[in-house]
């Protein structure tokens, strides 16, 4: 088993992982998520069984970190609202059409969110999406289709 030096993974994949995370959680949380991803990967790296799927492995970790961040944000928003009279809430800040779309992408269930991003932002084939999301090619196709249907319903309302 030959694992390449970890630094070569960082050099080869950090920029693209960052793009994936910006799409997944937005630019503010992407930096933190990237650090969490790389640190978790570094910790687990010596136990990695198959060096040929190291990139897919990194994306699987990034997807989990993104999901954690999304959950954290939802919880914080809920806590912010505790004890506030709903009548006093101001209107949410106005979002452009694209900002609204990406907010909805981020709200998708984890596997759909990751699959949609891999499919459209990175233009990947379903087989590779399956590898990167820890599922099969068929499940990846399903996740993209379901996510897309959901987005279409919400955006075209």
């Amino acid at each position, binding site marked *: 088993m030959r694992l390449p030096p970890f630094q070569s993974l960082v050099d080869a994949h950090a920029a693209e992982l960052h793009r994936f995370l910006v799409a997944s959680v937005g630019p503010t949380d992407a930096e933190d998520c990237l650090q969490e991803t790389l640190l978790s990967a570094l910790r687990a790296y010596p136990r990695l069984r198959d060096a040929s799927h190291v990139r897919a492995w990194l994306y699987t970790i990034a997807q989990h970190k993104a999901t954690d961040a999304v959950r954290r944000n939802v919880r914080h928003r809920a806590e912010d609202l505790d004890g506030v009279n709903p009548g006093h809430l101001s209107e949410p800040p106005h979002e452009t059409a694209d900002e609204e779309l990406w907010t909805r992408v981020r709200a998708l269930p984890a596997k759909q969110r990751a699959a949609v991003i891999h499919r459209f*932002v990175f*233009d990947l084939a379903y087989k590779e999406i399956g590898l990167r999301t820890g599922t099969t090619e068929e499940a990846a196709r399903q996740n993209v289709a379901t996510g897309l249907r959901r987005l279409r319903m919400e955006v075209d309302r």
Partner: protein
Amino acid sequence: MTELERRLARPPASAPFDARAATTVLVQRAIEAGLADVAYGWLDSPLGKLIVAVTPRGLVRIAYEREAEEDVLQELAAGVSPRVLRLPERTDAARRELEGYFAGTIRRFDLPLDWSLVHGFAMGVLKATARVPFGHVATYGELAASAGSPRAARSAGNALLIKPIPIVLPCHRIVPASGGIGGHGRG
């Protein structure tokens, strides 16, 4: 492609990715978490640009420019730990001693060494080599004897071909009993 799919292909804009900043933070956290198993940096020396690699135990590898960096890092990943990080600050102590040695202010290295890349007989030979003082030489036979095998001069010579830590392990101070300078002039 639908309009929605076209819009999804244009991800949200963000500040350009700063690889250096990202690595700096990662490296800091890796050290705090005790995950920086191998750290490497470079040193400009009279013998060319050297790669210097250290572990928490000590100096583990010095490589000359003629060795491909990729191969050296792969050797460290396979022989020590795959957690290899570019982390020049961690090699400062080793680099300072090497600079002093090249400047002529240091004659004896005082660095802890990590012997992870050396095995078996070669370890005894290289440890014996490390005891040969500045300005002295030893023969392959003498080296073999202090490694416990007085008749293994040739094996001792071969052991010196594996030199993970040249300069600090003074292979250049080892000579054949027949005279001459041996095959390790640069190492």
